[in-house]
C-alpha cells in the first residue's frame, strides 16, 4: 500500500499530518514557496498547471467554510480537479465510515486527500489506508499544520523573521489543534512562545512543549510581538471549563486595555471563525493597523498551494517534477 516518499524535493514526507517532526529547513522550504505563491495570487493571472490532471478530494468530517474553500481555491489555481465531500456527524458516529470511505476513495484514484476529522488521530488513521498524499486539515485537538504555516507566513512577511519573536497564544489551548501546531512550528523556528489562558483550558503538561505558561492575560502578553487568539471551542468540551462567557471575556478576552501590555507594534491574529465578544473584542479584531486576521486568510491560499505542490512534486514513476514557480 505504501509507496516511497518523494525524494530530492527537500521534503521527504508522503503526507502532511502535522508540524511535529518537521525540521526548520522543511518548514522554511514551505514558507518560501508560499511567499512565491502570494505574489502569483496577487497578479492577474493566478492559474498554474502543476496539478493539471490531478484530482484533489476535500474530505470533511466536520463543517468548515474557510479551510475547505481555501484548499479548493488553491487546488483549482494549480489546475487540479476538486471534489468536495462532507460527511455528516451522524454518519461518522456509525463508526465504519472512515475506513469504508478510504476504500472508496482509493478506488477513485485521488492524488491528494485533504481531510478534516473531529477526533485526534482520525486523519493519521485514514492516511495509513489510502494510496495518495494526505493533508491534515485539522484532526480533533491534535494538529492543523496548514494553519500554523499560514500563520508563520503572515508573521514573517510583517516582521521579517520568526526567530527571536515573542508570541503569546491565548485562550482555549487545551482543545486547540491550532495551538499545538503553532507551538511546534514557532519553537522549531526559534520564536519564544507563551501560552495564556484559564488553568482549566491550559493542559498541565504543556510546559513540556517548551512554552511559558501564564494564567494572567496582562502578564502573559506583556512585551509580546504577536498576540494569537484562539477560539473557545465549546463543541469539544465535556462540561463547562469556564463559568460564563462574561467572566471569560473579562479575564481572557482581548481588548485594548489588555493589548496595551504588549509591544506598541504588536500584531493580533486569530485562526477564525471568531467569537466576537468572547475571546476578542470586535474593535480590536477589526483594527486595520493591528489585526492580521484578513491577511491570514489570504496567506492560507498561498500556503495550501505550496503544500499541494510539494506533496505532488513526485510522479508515479518516482521522478521529481521539475521546478517550483519563482
Amino acid at each position, binding site marked *: 500500500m505504501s509507496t516511497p516518499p518523494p525524494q530530492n524535493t527537500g521534503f521527504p514526507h508522503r503526507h502532511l499530518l502535522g508540524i*511535529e517532526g518537521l525540521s526548520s529547513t522543511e518548514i522554511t522550504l514551505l514558507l518560501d514557496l508560499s511567499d512565491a505563491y502570494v505574489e502569483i495570487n496577487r497578479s492577474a493571472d493566478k492559474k498554474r498547471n502543476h496539478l493539471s490532471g490531478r484530482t484533489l478530494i476535500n474530505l470533511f468530517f466536520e463543517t468548515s467554510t474557510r479551510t475547505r474553500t481555501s484548499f479548493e481555491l488553491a487546488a483549482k489555481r494549480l489546475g487540479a480537479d476538486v471534489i468536495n465531500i462532507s460527511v455528516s456527524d451522524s454518519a461518522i458516529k456509525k*463508526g*465504519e465510515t*472512515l*475506513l469504508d470511505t478510504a476504500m472508496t476513495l482509493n478506488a477513485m484514484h485521488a492524488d491528494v486527500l485533504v481531510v478534516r*476529522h473531529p*477526533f*485526534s*488521530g*482520525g486523519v*493519521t*488513521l485514514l492516511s495509513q489506508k489510502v494510496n495518495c498524499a494526505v493533508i491534515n486539515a485539522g*484532526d*480533533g*485537538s*491534535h*494538529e492543523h499544520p496548514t494553519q500554523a504555516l499560514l500563520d508563520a507566513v503572515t508573521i514573517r512577511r510583517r516582521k521579517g523573521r520568526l526567530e527571536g519573536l515573542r508570541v503569546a497564544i491565548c485562550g482555549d489551548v487545551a482543545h486547540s*489543534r491550532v495551538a*499545538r501546531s503553532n507551538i511546534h512550528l514557532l519553537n522549531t523556528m526559534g520564536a519564544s512562545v507563551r501560552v495564556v489562558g484559564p488553568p482549566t483550558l491550559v*493542559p*498541565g*503538561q*504543556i510546559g*513540556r*512543549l517548551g512554552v511559558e505558561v501564564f494564567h494572567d492575560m496582562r502578564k502573559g502578553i506583556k512585551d509580546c510581538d504577536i498576540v494569537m487568539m484562539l477560539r473557545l471551542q465549546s463543541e469539544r468540551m*465535556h462540561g463547562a471549563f469556564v463559568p460564563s462567557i462574561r467572566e471569560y471575556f473579562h479575564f481572557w478576552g482581548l481588548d485594548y486595555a489588555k493589548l496595551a501590555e504588549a509591544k506598541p507594534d504588536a500584531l493580533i491574529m486569530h485562526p477564525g471563525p471568531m467569537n466576537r465578544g468572547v475571546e476578542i473584542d470586535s474593535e480590536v479584531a477589526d483594527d486595520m493597523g493591528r489585526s492580521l486576521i484578513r491577511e491570514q486568510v489570504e496567506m492560507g491560499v498561498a500556503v495550501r498551494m505550496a503544500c499541494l505542490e510539494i506533496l505532488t512534486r513526485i510522479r508515479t514513476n518516482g521522478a521529481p517534477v521539475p521546478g517550483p514557480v519563482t
Partner: protein
Amino acid sequence: MTRELQRAPEGRRTPGRVAYVNARLLDPASALDAKGGLITDGEAIADFGAHIGQGTIPEGATIVDCRGQCLAPGLVDMRVQVREPGEEHKETIGTASRSAAAGGVTAMVCLPNTNPVIDDVAVVEFIARRAREVKLVKIFAYGSVTKGLKGDDLTEMGLLGAAGAVGFTDGVKAVANARVMRRALTYSRAFGSLIIQHPEEPRLAEGGAMNEGELAMRLGLSGIPAIAEAMMIERDLRLVEVTGGRYHAAHVSTALALEQIRRAKDAGLPVTCDTAPPYFALDETAVGDYRTFAKLSPPLRADSDRRAVVAALKDGTIDAIASDHAPHDQDSKRLPFTQAEFGIVGLETLLPLSLKLHHDGHLPLLSVLGALTCKPADLLGLPLGRLVSGAPADFVIFDLDRPWRVEVERFKSKSKNSPFDLHPVQGRAMRTVVDGRTVFWLDGG
C-alpha cells in the same frame, strides 16, 4: 520406550492412567521445585513427586516424557470477558476456552458484563451449561454487584453465590455510588463473598482515552488521570474499614493506588488486588501514533507506574495476575482512537508475559506462578491452582526458556486485538491438561 499420549489437542475423553515423567515439578502452594513426575488416574492426580520415574510407573499407564519441561498447576485466570451471551461475534465460550487452553489456563472466571448481564441465577446456570458442553477448561462466573450493572440496586448475592457465582463485580464499570458500595461490602459479609471493583472514579475518567500526561497532551487526546484510580480505591478502603467486607481491586495500574493498598494491607484490612500483564510489560508510549490496540481501561500508564507495578508484585502487594482478556472485533478497534473500544485479548499471552518477570530477574519463578495459580484460586475460594494427590488433574506443561514470537493470527481467540503482535517472548505452554484430559497440545512441540 515412552509412548506419546494420543495427539488430541481438544480431547474430550478422559484417559486411564497417564504418567508424566521427566518433568520439573513446580507447585507454588507447597514451594515444590523438583525433578520428578506426576501420575493421573482418570480425572485426578494419583501421585506426584521426585519418586515418580522409571520403575514407579503403574502397569498399563500411558507415559508422557516431559523432557525436562516444567509441570505446574494450570493457570487460574480471575478476569476474563468471554462475550457470551450477547457478543458472540467477538468471542464465545468455545473460542475463549480454546484460547485459555492454548495459554495454559485451566480455569477462568467470566465478568458479568454480558447481554443479558450475569445478575440472575438463570444466566449463571447458562454459563455453566455452555461450559459443560464445550468441556475444555473450567469456567466460573462473577455475578454483578448491581442489577443490570446500573449501579443502583444490589443483586441476589446469596442466591447467585449458591448457584455458583464466585464473587461480585460490576465488571468494567466502577460501583460509583458510595452508598451502594457500602451496602454491597456490608451485605456480602453474610456469605463471605468477594467484592471486586473496577477502581476508577468515572467522572474524572469520563471522555478520557489514554493516560493523562504529556503524550496525551501532544496527541490531543483527553486523559484519564492516575488519581481517578487512587481516589476510588481510597474511598473504597474507607468503606472496607467500616464494613469489614472483602474487597479486591482489579487491574491496578498506578503507583499511587498501590501505595494505598500496601498501607491498607499493613493495617490488616481484608483487601487484595490484581494486575494484568500490559501494566508491567508496557507503558503509555505503546499508544505511539494512535495505536488503538494499546487502548486499555485502565489506560497504560507512565513508566514510573509500570515499575511500581513490578515492585508491588515483588513485595506481594499485588496478589494475583489476571489476563483481563477483552476481545474486540476489528470494527471496534479500527477507529479513531477516541472512538475505539477499550481492552485487549490476553489469555494466550498471560503466561509468557508473566514469565518475563522471572526471566528479567524481578521475581522467583514460584512467585510468578503463585500469582497465576494458587493465589487467585484462594481469593475466590476455589480448590484449584495447586498440585494435590486426589485433586483434579489440572496442570500445564510449559517450556520455560523457549523463545518465540507472539503472532495474533495464530490466536485461538476469535479476536486478535493485542498490542503484543510480533513481540518476542520467552516461555510457552506446551500441553494443557484439565481433569486428566489433554485440552491443548502444541503441534511441533
